[in-house]
């Protein structure tokens, strides 16, 4: 049997960063194929290349043996590759039938003058929907249907043309179980008709419920392709994560000690604020993660606020690149290349009703000032870049940020500051209140940033996290610094430093 669709050696670069590297994919007629991978593994990029939204930098694409190169989704659709996206791209204020045919009302005889033959439209729509086992009133507004029906209508719309390949990008994420079963029944029926279906999901049980084969991507690279029956869930997770599953819990990667001779990027000498923080000496070098450990109330947040100009110190000096500076407000700090992701995300971080785009652009725009306005398009480009690179899960960048989950809000906050291209990023409890998986991703991102030469000041009450990511750990207690530990120190060592009364001046 020959594959109907075959991709090989696909590369895709965004601004010099490899999003896909040498990726391959085979789809056979009459199969359901699951494409798996973590966020940011490159699944969406691959789909976009496949459907002509993006153009691959290199590689070969063959449909039924012939080389193709779709230039747009419409192009791909004409070739027989139909796609149903995660967010339903339909108009809730139009009827079901209109949605099925929007933009391509039946031309043969249905058009008399400028009048659309609605009876014909409705009849054809009913037919198409019946093909996927959906029997509903096609004249009702789509918006009044459940999400599942909308999803099926989207599929019907995709099937309106003679399609050979159907791509479903996370179709089940907003469906409940019964609805998922309903969808699967449709997929199986289409499979029976010989269609090749590429199916992207996060839910392992769904993969095993419906798919025949699995392709796994990781970090933009092809990991492998297996028949679903031969790849157990454990093995699948390992393939996706690239390590043994049990190891995800912690496993400190011992950090290479940062070069002690690098001059300090930021240095404080006796910096303090009466009643909040005793004078403190601290330095952070480019390319290192300095962890700040201590119990709540030890003065970590106070230090971060002092460094960022949110509070005014009344003793000591703060120097950046060896030059003494005085930061009167956060705007000054930003000017010097500092960035702070505050601890209280809801009150000090997100601007809830503004969109993800505006939230991400806010700090950069503030830095540029009122007059150097970033156009809507520039903001969108910026936001989308980070949504992609940090794997922020949102339907689109115009969505109000308040609707995102905590972890994604946190990532958007990090994105806001990365957009200003800071030299020192201060993260105050970036992992609080977010789930395990997102924690992991954020810590990975921190390590990556430091490797790229950014200085990071990492504050967390979770000692295990501090120990894991830091090159050096400064320990605070009772609003003063009580010592410094090298990277890779044990949690117990940190706790002992906190508990004991050693006075490291």
């Amino acid at each position, binding site marked *: 049997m020959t594959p109907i669709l075959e991709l090989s050696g696909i590369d895709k670069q965004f601004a010099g960063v490899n999003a896909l590297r040498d990726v391959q994919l085979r789809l056979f007629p009459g199969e359901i194929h699951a494409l798996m991978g973590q966020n940011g593994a490159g699944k969406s990029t691959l789909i976009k290349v496949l459907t002509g939204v993006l153009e691959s930098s290199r590689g070969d694409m063959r449909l039924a043996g012939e080389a193709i190169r779709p230039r747009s989704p419409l192009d791909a659709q004409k070739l027989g590759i139909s796609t149903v996206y995660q967010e339903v791209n339909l108009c809730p204020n139009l*009827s079901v039938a209109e949605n099925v045919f929007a933009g391509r009302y039946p031309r043969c005889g249905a058009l008399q003058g400028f009048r659309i033959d609605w009876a014909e439209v409705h009849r054809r729509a009913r037919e198409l929907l019946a093909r996927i086992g959906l029997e509903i009133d096609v004249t009702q507004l789509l918006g009044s249907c459940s999400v599942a029906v909308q999803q099926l209508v989207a599929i019907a719309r995709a099937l309106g043309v003679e399609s050979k390949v159907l791509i479903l990008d996370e179709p089940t994420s907003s469906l409940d179980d*019964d609805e998922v079963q309903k969808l699967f029944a449709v997929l199986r029926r289409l499979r029976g008709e010989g269609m090749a279906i590429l199916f992207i999901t996060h839910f392992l049980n769904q993969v095993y419920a419906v798919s025949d084969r699995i392709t796994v991507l990781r970090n933009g690279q092809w990991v492998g392709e297996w028949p679903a029956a031969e790849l157990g869930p454990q093995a699948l997770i390992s393939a996706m994560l690239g390590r043994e599953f049990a190891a995800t819990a912690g496993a400190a990667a011992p950090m290479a000690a940062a070069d002690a001779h690098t001059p300090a990027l930021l240095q404080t000498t006796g910096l303090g604020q009466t009643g909040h923080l005793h004078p403190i000496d601290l330095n952070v070098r480019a390319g290192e993660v300095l962890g700040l450990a201590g119990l709540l109330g030890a003065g970590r947040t106070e230090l971060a606020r002092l460094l960022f100009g*949110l509070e005014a110190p009344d003793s000591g000096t703060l120097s950046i690149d060896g030059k003494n500076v005085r930061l009167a407000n*956060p705007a000054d700090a930003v000017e010097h290349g500092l960035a702070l992701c505050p601890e209280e995300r809801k009150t000090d971080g997100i601007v809830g*009703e503004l969109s993800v785009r505006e939230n991400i652009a806010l700090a950069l725009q*503030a830095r540029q000032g009122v007059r150097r*306005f970033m156009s809507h398009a520039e903001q969108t480009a910026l936001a989308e870049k980070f949504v992609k690179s940090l794997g922020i899960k949102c339907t689109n960048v115009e969505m109000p940020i308040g609707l995102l989950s905590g972890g994604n809000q946190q990532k958007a906050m990090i994105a806001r500051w990365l957009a200003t291209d800071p030299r020192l990023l201060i993260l105050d409890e970036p992992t609080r209140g977010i789930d395990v998986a997102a924690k992991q991703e954020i810590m990975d991102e921190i390590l990556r940033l430091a490797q790229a030469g950014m200085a990071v000041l990492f504050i967390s009450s979770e000692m295990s996290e501090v120990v894991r990511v830091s090159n050096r750990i400064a320990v605070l207690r009772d609003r003063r610094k009580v010592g410094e530990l090298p990277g890779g120190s044990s949690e117990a060592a940190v706790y002992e430093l906190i508990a004991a009364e050693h006075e490291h001046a």
Partner: protein
Amino acid sequence: MLKHFSMLMKHRLAWPVITLLLLLAVNAAFNDGFLHIEWRGGHLYGSLIDILNRAAPLMLVSLGMTLVIATRGIDISVGAVVAIAAALAAWMIGGALVVVDGVATHVTRFPMPLALIAAVAVAALCGLWNGMLVARVGMQPIIATLILMVAGRGIAQLITNGQIITIYYGPYFFLGSGYLLGLPFSLFIVAAVFVALYLAITRSALGLFIQSVGINPEASRVAGVKARAIIVGVYAFCGACAGVAGLLISSNVKSADGNNAGQLIELDAILAVTLGGTLLTGGKFSLVGSMIGALIIQTLTYAIYSLGVPPEINLVVKAVVVFAVMLMQSAEFRDSIRALVQKPARGEVRA
């Protein structure tokens, strides 16, 4: 096309526009020639023009108020500021018709441009004062501006010495009742302020900053936005708008009354802003909406007078209309009505 209509209805300016159109229709139905505009005496003449001209001060104040409300604030001192600006301008101009060498000449106490600048500057200063109280001292906006609301009338009356100052200076009248290119001059002022503001909002980051400060001031500050400066700025702008409105009003009535000029304009302006779809809780705002809101209020007033509604209950009618629009805009209210009327959502497909 019912469907396109329903989409239109979801636009947030839909209700204000409909209200305005309805009011115009009511006026037109009961007043012959309401929509009639003719060229008379070198300029356009008609009810619509009249409404526009009379709405000008309110539109100006509403513009300023929109920004203040967008930053989660409120400014109830604009009426007093209108009075101050009017009083100052009137006092500085004063004016008298003097016959010099057989020619009747207007004489002012100070040059008119100086008077105009001074009046607007003082009004902006009043706004600045409000802004400082809110942003620097940390008072709640309603209290901070209540202070000037109470004291401002006194200040205005101090300027006018407790009298109503009548202005005798022809050129000044041009502001409020003159015509340019056939249209009331006041409209040009409103248009100029609106366009300048609109450009500033859409072509610079000002709009983004104002919204973000309104939604979450602390987060904006942490993001490096100079939140305090923005707040002080919008209050100052609001004050300046009120000042210009004061000039228009005093020029139109050719006098300044420290006690009554701009009476209740703060309430009309707040209503105009809320009618225009800007929430009192700050954040997203609509300048166009506020302009429409101001026009609704003025059209409504016109309708009430022209329909011969007894003056005793015109306030009632005004309140009822305004309130009805507010109700329709309230999502909670619509939901609760819908819950009463409709059955649960349909379209459930259970296989």
